[in-house]
C-alpha cells in the first residue's frame, strides 16, 4: 500500500527553563530521530508512556511545534510550512484530542463546533452548512437534536463523537487520534473505536496515539513503540503485540491488566 505520511529522523527539542548557575541548559529532546511510516487505508499506532514523545511527534505533523528532520504528508514537506500553516495543509491533517471537554471550546454550540471547519474551508451558505453539519452528526451516531448543545451538555462519548465529526468535516487524508479513547468508559471506548474503524477509507489513514497495547492490537494495523523520544520497535500490530522483540515492548505488554489473573479462580481468601 502507498505511504501517505512519513517522518525521517524527526527531532523536537524544547528549551529548558534557565536556573541559577545553569544559564544555558541543554535543550530537552522530546522526540529523538524518530522515523515513522503511515500507510493509506490503515490505522498506525504510536504507543508509549507519558514523556515518550508520542504526542509531540503528532504535534509536529500538525505543524504545532518546530522540528528538525523531515516529515511529509500527502507529498507536502511539513517542515517548510510556516507555523500558521496554509489552509490547504490544515484540510489534509486533522486531529481528535484526548479530553474533548478541553479540546472543544466550552462556549460554543455543537452547530458552531462542527460548522467552524466548514466555514473556514468551504464557501457553503448558512443553510447548506447546517445540512452538512447534521449529516456529519448522523455519521457519528448523533442527531440534529444535539445541534444547540454546548460540549458541557453532552456525555463523554458524545463529546468525542462531536470532536470526530469536527475533524472529518473537511475530509482529511490523515486523522490524528491523540489518546482519543483514553478518557472514555470501556463500553463507550469500544463503540467509538468501532465508529473510527468504520470511517477508514482506502485513500485515508489514521495515526492512533495511545498507551494501551491491548486497544492498539484490536484497533490498529501497525504499531510503533516509543520510549524517551525514540521509536524502539515497529511492525504489524498483531506481530508486535503477539511476539514482542524489544525488552520495553515486553514490559508494556506484561503490564496490561488481565480480566482473569492466573489462579484467581482458585484463590479464596482465608
Amino acid at each position: 500500500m502507498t505511504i501517505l505520511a512519513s517522518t525521517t529522523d524527526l527531532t523536537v527539542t524544547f528549551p529548558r527553563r534557565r536556573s541559577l548557575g545553569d544559564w544555558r541548559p541543554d535543550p530537552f529532546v522530546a522526540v529523538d530521530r524518530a522515523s515513522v511510516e503511515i500507510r493509506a487505508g490503515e490505522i498506525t499506532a504510536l504507543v508509549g508512556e507519558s514523556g515518550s514523545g508520542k504526542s509531540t511527534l503528532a504535534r509536529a505533523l500538525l505543524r504545532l511545534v518546530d522540528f528538525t528532520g523531515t516529515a511529509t504528508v500527502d507529498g507536502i514537506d511539513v517542515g517548510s510550512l510556516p507555523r500558521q500553516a496554509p489552509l490547504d495543509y490544515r484540510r489534509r491533517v486533522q486531529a481528535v484530542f484526548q479530553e474533548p471537554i478541553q479540546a472543544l471550546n466550552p462556549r460554543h454550540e455543537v452547530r458552531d463546533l462542527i460548522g467552524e471547519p466548514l466555514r473556514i474551508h468551504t464557501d457553503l451558505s448558512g443553510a447548506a452548512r447546517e445540512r452538512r453539519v447534521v449529516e456529519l452528526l448522523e455519521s457519528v451516531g448523533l442527531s440534529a437534536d444535539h445541534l444547540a448543545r454546548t460540549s458541557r451538555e453532552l456525555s463523554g462519548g458524545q463529546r468525542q463523537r462531536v470532536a470526530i465529526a469536527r475533524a472529518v468535516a473537511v475530509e482529511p487524508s490523515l486523522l490524528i487520534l491523540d489518546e482519543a479513547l483514553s478518557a472514555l468508559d470501556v463500553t463507550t471506548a469500544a463503540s467509538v473505536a468501532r465508529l473510527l474503524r468504520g470511517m477508514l477509507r482506502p485513500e485515508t489513514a489514521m495515526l492512533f496515539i495511545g498507551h494501551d497495547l491491548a486497544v492498539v492490537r484490536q484497533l490498529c494495523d501497525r504499531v510503533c513503540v516509543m520510549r524517551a523520544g525514540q521509536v524502539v520497535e515497529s511492525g504489524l500490530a498483531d506481530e508486535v503485540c503477539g511476539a514482542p522483540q524489544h525488552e520495553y515492548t515486553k514490559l508494556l505488554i506484561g503490564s496490561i491488566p488481565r480480566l482473569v489473573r492466573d489462579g484467581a479462580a482458585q484463590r479464596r481468601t482465608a
Partner: protein
Amino acid sequence: MRAPRGSLVTWAAATVVGVVGVLAVFGPLLTPYDPDNGELIDALQNPSGGHWLGTDYLGRDVLSRIIAGSRVAAVAGLEATAVALVVGVSIGMIVGLAGGWTDRIVMRLIDGISAIPALVLAIAIIAALGSGLTRSMFAVGLAFAMSMARLARGLTLSERERLYVDGARVVGAARSRLLWHHIAPNVAGPIAVQATLVFASAITIEAGLSFLGLGVQPPAASWGSMLASAQRTIRHAPFQAIPPGVAVVATVLSINILGDAVVRRRRGDAYDHPTGYLEPTTIGPAGPASGDDAGAGGRRLLRAAGIDVHYGANHAVRGADLDIAPGEVVALVGESGSGKTSLAMALAGLLTPPAVATASEIRLSTPDGHHDLVGAGSDGQRAWRTHVGVVFQEPSASLNPLQTVGRQLGDVIRAQRRANSSSAEPTGSLGPAGSVDEQVVVLLGDVGLPRPAEVAKLRPGQISGGMAQRVMIALALAKDPDLLVADEPTTALDVTVQAEIIRLLRRLCEERHFGVLLVTHDLGVAGELADHCLVMFRGQVIESGPIASVSLAPTHPYTSALVSAVPQNEPGRPILEPPSTEGRVETAVDVEIETGVEDGEGCAYRSRCPFAVERCATETPVATAVIGRSEGERTVACHRAEELELPGARVVAGVLAAPVAKERL
C-alpha cells in the same frame, strides 16, 4: 444564611445603580429647576419644601444639579471604561497571543505607563490638550487601559495553552478568529468584573478632576464641582457638601458591590469555601438491615447494608450492601456516574455536602471492638477515619506541594499517635516505639521506594507520579488502617507503573491483612487486584460475586457488555465486533447517563439492554442469589438472569506471564 443577606445588599446596590442610571438618562425631564442658573436672592438656602436639598452660592437648586451631575458621572464612567476596554483588551489579547518579543516590549512599555497614577497621567494629558470632560476621561481611560491590558494578556496567555485553541489552530482558524471567536468569550467574565471597577474609579476621578477645575467647566454641574463650590461656603452652609458627597460614595460603592456579586456568581461555592474544605456529612439511619443477619460475622471486617446517597434530586447510590473480610480486596466497578465513588466515600466517612447519606448499618469489626458509622457524630466520624486509610486518584494533587514528603508523613504519624494515646488503647504494631523520622523511613521503604531516607527530603514536585502514589499509600498506611479505600489508585499512572502499584497493594494486603475497597472503572485492574467485585450501574449494585467467576460467567447483560468491551491482548478484533443485540438494532450512541431522571419503576439498564422485556419497564429488579452457582455468594439484579446465556471474559494465554520489573518491589 449567606444568600439572603448577600442578595439584600446586592439588591440595594442594584437599586442605587438603577436610580442613578434613570436620572442620567431622563435627568433633564426630571429636574425641578434649571441646574445651571439660579436667582442670587435664593443663594445658600437650607433644605426646604421649595428646594429639597437647598441651594448653592449662586442660588441654583442642589437637587437639580445632583441629577444633572449623575449624567456627567455616567458619561464619564462609560467613556473611560469604553476606552480602557477597547484599548486595553485589544493590546492585551494581541500581545498575549503573539508572545515573544512583541509581548516583552509592549509589556515593559505598559509597566512604565502603569507606574504613573491614573489621576496624575490624566492631569498631564489635560495639561497638553486642555481641560474638558471628554478629554480628561479619555486620559483616564488610557491610564486604566494599562491594567486592563495586563489582565487581558494574563488571561489570554493561560487560555492560549488550553487544548481547544490547538484544536482551532488545527481546524485552520486564523489568528484573528482565534482571538475574537475562541479566546474572547472565555476571558470575558474576569474582564467584565474589572470593567465595573474601572467604571467606579472613573466616577471618583471625574469628581476629583472637576473638584480641581480640570473636568467639567462651570456653569455645568458635576458632583466634583459641586463639592468644590460647597467647600468655598462650608462655614455658611455646611449642608451643601453632603448631597454630592453621598451621591459619589453611594454610586461607587454600589457599582463595586455589583462587581463583587458577579464574581460571587461566577465562582459559586468556591467563593465561600476558598480552601475547598467542607465538613463531611454524617450518615443517618435507615430502616433495619434486610435479609441475612450477621451469620458470618466472625470473619467480617466491614459490613455495610442499605446505603443510599442523594445529591439533591439525584439518587447516586441506591440501597447498596457490601461486606469485606480481613485481607480481602473488594472492587467497586462501574462507569463514570455509576455512584461507585459516592459509595466508597460514604464508607470512608468523607462524603461532603450537598450529599445526604443514610444506611441501615455500617460496621467495622476490628480487634479492639466494633465501630459504627451510622448515626455517628463528627467525633465518631473522626474515630472512624483513624481506622480507614484512603488513596486517591491524583497523587500529586493530594499532596501538599510545599512540604517535603517526610514532613507530611510525619504529621500523619504524630496525629495518629495522639489519637491512639488519647483513646488509651495502644494498638499493635505501630506503637510509640521509634522516633517519627524512623517510622517515616520504614513506611517509605514498605511501599517499595528505593532509598527512602532521601525520598523523605523531597517535595511532591520532585518525584514522579508513581512515586507520589506510593507516598500516598504510605500516608494511608501510617494510620495502620483496618480498611483501605483506594479510589482509582492507578488511573492517572502509566501502565508499567500501574502494574507495580497493583503488585504493591496486593503484597501489602497479604502482609498486613487489612481489607481493601478498590474503586475502578477498569475491570482489568479489578481482575488483577480484587477477590470480589460489585458491578454498579446508576447507583445500583447490579451484580456481585468472586471476581473471576463474575468475569468468566456474567449473569447481568451489563456486566457481560462491560467484560466484552475490555480490550485484551489477543488476536482478532473482538472489541470492534458489535455487541450481541438479539434482533435489536444497536444504537451507535452510548445512551447518555441522565442523572437523577427516573427514580421510578423499572430496570435502570433497560434502555441499553438488548434483552429488555415488558417486565423490565414496570418492575425494578432486586439483587437475588444466582441459582446454580456453587462458588458461593453471587447476586444479580436482573429479571432474565436465569434464562440468558451471556458471553464472559475470554481467558487470554499470558503472552508474558512472568512479572517484569519485580526488582522495584
